[in-house]
């Protein structure tokens, strides 16, 4: 590509949602406005080392108010929440928690990955994101453990409690499983 072909991204002021920084502050990201764009977060990010995910850009976009772009981008889901960015930030900005807060906003608009909805459906059905399966039951027995662990897997009343709680919080609706188990 020739230099003359490089297009600059233009940020249009009328397309910005300048309430986003305040919204994030209210979600506990109190120091976000002090970001100096040093890039320590990006340099520390194990996910960004192999993808185009850039934590510094997430913070910049959040401060500019490019909310739609942030919430619709799948990059938001590449963070493993290792918290290295947060630990190394010279201003102690809650970078990881910013991403989690943005994910909450995305999920509330139905912008979740299908695979995450599927995993969450297991939580609703069994009380566990990773429920017991037949091979693991056999492994448990062979080690002298109870075939089913003493969790919701052994106590139907407890599972019912978890399901009631999840429905009360409308988690079933959030993951597209309204009323279902």
């Amino acid at each position, binding site marked *: 590509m020739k230099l003359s072909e490089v297009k600059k991204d233009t940020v249009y002021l009328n397309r910005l949602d300048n309430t986003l920084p305040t919204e994030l502050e209210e979600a506990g990201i109190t120091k976000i406005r002090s970001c100096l764009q040093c890039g320590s977060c990006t340099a520390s990010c*194990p*996910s960004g080392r*192999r*993808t185009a995910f850039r934590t510094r850009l997430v913070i910049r976009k959040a401060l500019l108010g490019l909310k739609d772009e942030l919430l619709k981008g799948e990059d938001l*889901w*590449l*963070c*493993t*929440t*290792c*918290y*290295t960015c*947060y*630990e190394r930030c010279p201003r102690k900005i809650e970078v*990881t928690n910013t991403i*989690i807060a943005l*994910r*909450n906003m995305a*999920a*509330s608009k139905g912008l*979740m*990955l299908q*695979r*995450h909805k599927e*995993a*969450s459906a297991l*939580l609703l059905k069994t*009380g*566990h*994101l*990773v*429920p*017991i*399966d037949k091979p*693991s039951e056999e*492994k*448990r027995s062979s*080690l*002298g*453990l109870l075939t089913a*662990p*003493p*969790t*919701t*897997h*052994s*106590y139907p*009343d*407890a*599972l019912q*409690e*978890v399901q*009631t*709680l*999840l429905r*009360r*919080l409308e*988690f079933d609706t*959030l*993951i597209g499983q309204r009323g279902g188990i």
Partner: protein
Amino acid sequence: MDYALYLGCIAPNRYPGIEASVRGTLEELGVRLHDLRGASCCPAPGVVKSFSKDTWLALAARNISLAEDLMKNLMTICNGCYGTLKEANEILKTNELLKLKANEALSSIGRSVNGSIEIRHITEVLYNEIGLDSIREHVKRKIPLKAAAHYGCHLLKPSELRPWGSTERPRFLDELIELTGATSVPYKDKMMCCGAGGGVRAGAIDVALDMTMEKIDNVLNAGADCIVDVCPFCHLQLDAGQLQLNKKLEAKYNVPVLYYTQLLGASMGFDPLKMGVQQNTVNGLRLFQR
């Protein structure tokens, strides 16, 4: 010493050998473990907390309330569960408004939560409460392995609520490993994430596996015989991830992964077979047959 044992999902439901080794070693070390009957997923900090913080807190509060019913502090054996329950418990102790919200939700199932107990990771119980010297008295056999310690992220970070100090160069897991007679070998990017957290294993498996591969390559380059971890989710990623890498890339990764109490148990005289080391994707039995 008494603890409510919080099992989580992956240890009991995929790697029961971890559960067996925890129960065996801790009992021998004089810790009485009480089952948290009817516990659910913690729920996972990178996943459920990413979707709905309210749901995350309410479900965590329910698990904490089970331990409060027993009037016992809660011990987790997983970094993810530790991350969730530690943070949720701190919220319940310090944020009246969110505690009220959690209790409102819990009232629908006739429960309530006070914020009256403490949450500890098994390494905290081993290192800070039982202590290296007391554990050493139970070591009957030295295990001459070169081990690559994998701390995992949520054991250490965010650092505020945790007792460890350094998140860049901690030593406690290395010290726990070395009292078994094993050597903890240094390796490149030792503190790097396994790749599984934050919903990345479920949502972007190729990215997760690429991180795992980097980690395992670094472990191999350091000449380690095995990886030793303290988190069943890291364990799943580092162990089962090798099979996924082998299928995807026609590679031949074959590094055994042990949960810490499987190594400790072997040094305390437990039969590795009874701690399920042969049930891992990469059979760990060969580590003890020399």
